[in-house]
């Protein structure tokens, strides 16, 4: 590809300004603030702050509740990621069989992408409505009194289920387009080489979906870690009480409910480092290994 060159340094900087200023104002600046305040102990009533060095971090390391929540976050993320990916893949493979070539179907299913996330989240919450939610009733008929927002494991179950419910359509679309981009002749060659459908799936289809799958894995981990905030907030209704929560929600609870800005900032910094690590990991692996062209 031919590279176009700029004769001065000013034009490119000027062109980048709008984007850069948004990033700086809404990301770098608050991030820097967070890093800074993570070294201070803020007075809960807003009367100044004291420099405490790494104390906010060492406090976290020694805090049993923080470790418990971190552990829950790991399990929650693993479950949400696994089930979101597995269900979406299953559905995509089934859908792919039906709509191969039929464009009208594909457009129909694409709409799911635009509509699904907010609506699905809302519907998911409805499912657990205390008085008339169908899932609550189903549990009742099984002899289990499902109490969302009070019972720890019930709430955890609902959190996982609604989060998965919300993410499946997104994964589904990606998997489906991944499946449809596998050349027809490669599938046909496999049809001649291997009589077993499951053998063909694991030997040919699945590895060819690996780039999509890996991309989605990172997206889903990020989703489960951070973007489930809304789901959790809806389910626990801002009443942490005895309910499970993830690290991101804990940042909010400590910072805005507990007014512990220093501790909360330290938690955000830890999460930022986590995102950074994930991103680096993604670039390294995606760029280098999983590519077949």
């Amino acid at each position, binding site marked *: 590809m031919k590279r176009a060159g700029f004769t001065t340094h000013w034009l490119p900087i000027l062109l980048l300004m709008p984007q850069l200023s948004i990033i700086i104002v809404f990301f770098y600046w608050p991030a820097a603030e967070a890093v800074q305040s993570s070294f201070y102990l803020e007075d809960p009533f807003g009367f100044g702050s004291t420099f405490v060095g790494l104390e906010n971090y060492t406090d976290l390391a020694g805090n049993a509740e923080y470790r418990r929540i971190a552990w829950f976050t790991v399990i929650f993320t693993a479950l949400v990621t696994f089930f979101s990916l597995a269900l979406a893949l299953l559905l995509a493979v089934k859908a792919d069989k039906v709509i191969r070539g039929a464009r009208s179907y594909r457009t129909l299913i694409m709409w799911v992408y635009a509509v699904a996330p907010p609506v699905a989240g809302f519907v998911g919450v409805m499912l657990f409505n205390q008085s008339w939610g169908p899932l609550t009733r189903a549990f009742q008929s099984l002899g289990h009194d499902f109490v969302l927002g009070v019972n720890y494991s019930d709430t955890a179950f609902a959190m996982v289920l609604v989060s998965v419910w919300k993410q499946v359509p997104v994964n589904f679309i990606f998997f489906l387009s991944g499946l449809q981009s596998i*050349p027809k002749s490669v599938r046909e*060659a496999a049809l*001649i080489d291997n009589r077993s459908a499951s053998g063909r799936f694991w030997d040919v289809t699945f590895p060819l979906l690996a780039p999509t799958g890996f991309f989605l894995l990172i997206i889903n981990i990020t989703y489960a870690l951070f973007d489930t905030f809304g789901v959790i907030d809806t389910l626990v209704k801002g009443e942490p009480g005895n309910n499970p929560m993830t690290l991101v929600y804990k940042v909010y609870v400590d910072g805005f409910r507990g007014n512990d800005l220093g501790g909360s900032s330290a938690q955000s910094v830890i999460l930022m480092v986590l995102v950074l690590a994930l991103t680096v990991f993604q670039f390294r692996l995606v760029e280098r290994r999983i590519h*077949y062209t």
Partner: protein
Amino acid sequence: MAQVSLNSIRKVYPNGFEAVTPSSFDIKDGEFVVLVGPSGCGKSTLLRMIAGLEDITSGDLHIAGRQVNHVDPADRDIAMVFQNYALYPHMTVRRNIGYGLKNRKTPKAEIDRKVEEAAALLNLSDYLDRKPSQLSGGQRQRVAMGRAIVRDPALFLFDEPLSNLDAKLRNQMRIEIKALQKRLGVTSIYVTHDQVEAMTMADRIVVLNAGRIEQIGTPSEIYHSPASTFVASFMGAPPMNLVQAQFQDGAVRLPCGTAVLDAPTSRRGPITLGIRPEDVRLGQGQTAFDVHLVEELGAHRLLHGQIAGQPFTAHVVKDTIASPGAHVVDLPRAALALFDTQTGARL
């Protein structure tokens, strides 16, 4: 015994389009049959029905004496080479070639031996541990061949396997494939729209037109006695000259009145005359040939022009002196073919 036998095989696509009208032919053991025809005539459809990749709407298909209409592609004992090679991009050359064997419960040691053998035969030994993306077009083509021969199937199916290669490589691979097929003696069906490939590779050619078989015959039969104007104009480069003429006063006459052939006086009406450009004799006879363009091809020349107002081409050897202008040609009787103008069928 017929190795492959098609009995009134017909294909109607779900949208109602009849891509192949009921077609029947038999292929002998070890024979190399080429399906040729213009784009969209149903060659691939026919081949894919034989492979089992497309349902057969009606008719009977037998491979090695067994009816296989409803047998899975993997169980038909066939191997197919696709136009775009269809290699598994995530597998090495070794695994690509061995994949079909692995699924047929062949012992590991035997797979290894067969893969090495096939690779040696195709000059691929140095590339066994590469991925397809690290190979040239010609090498990928060979891997696709390797994948087919390693299985030792009853039938090879090729769907325009050379059309993605450049002209030089195409000529070379054409010869290699033919040699390989002779050596292995495997019955083969080869689809192409390139009539040079068809002529040079085939033991027998099946010419298809709009889902219908126009003619089945050896390359020489197809070339020298085409069964219809379609075959005459499709096979050969340049194709056979087709000139409209009339039965008149006991002779076949060109519109200018020149008699080219005696005929029973009872016959009347239009007729189409066919003659291959290389059978035309320049400078003899009395048919006027108006040359517009001389095409220099090194070993020979092509003279393009008109006879009686209709396009006409003559082929002359390299040292014939010819320039645009008025010439005379002789159309030897023995070389003339007569076709029904309406139906295009040979008379």
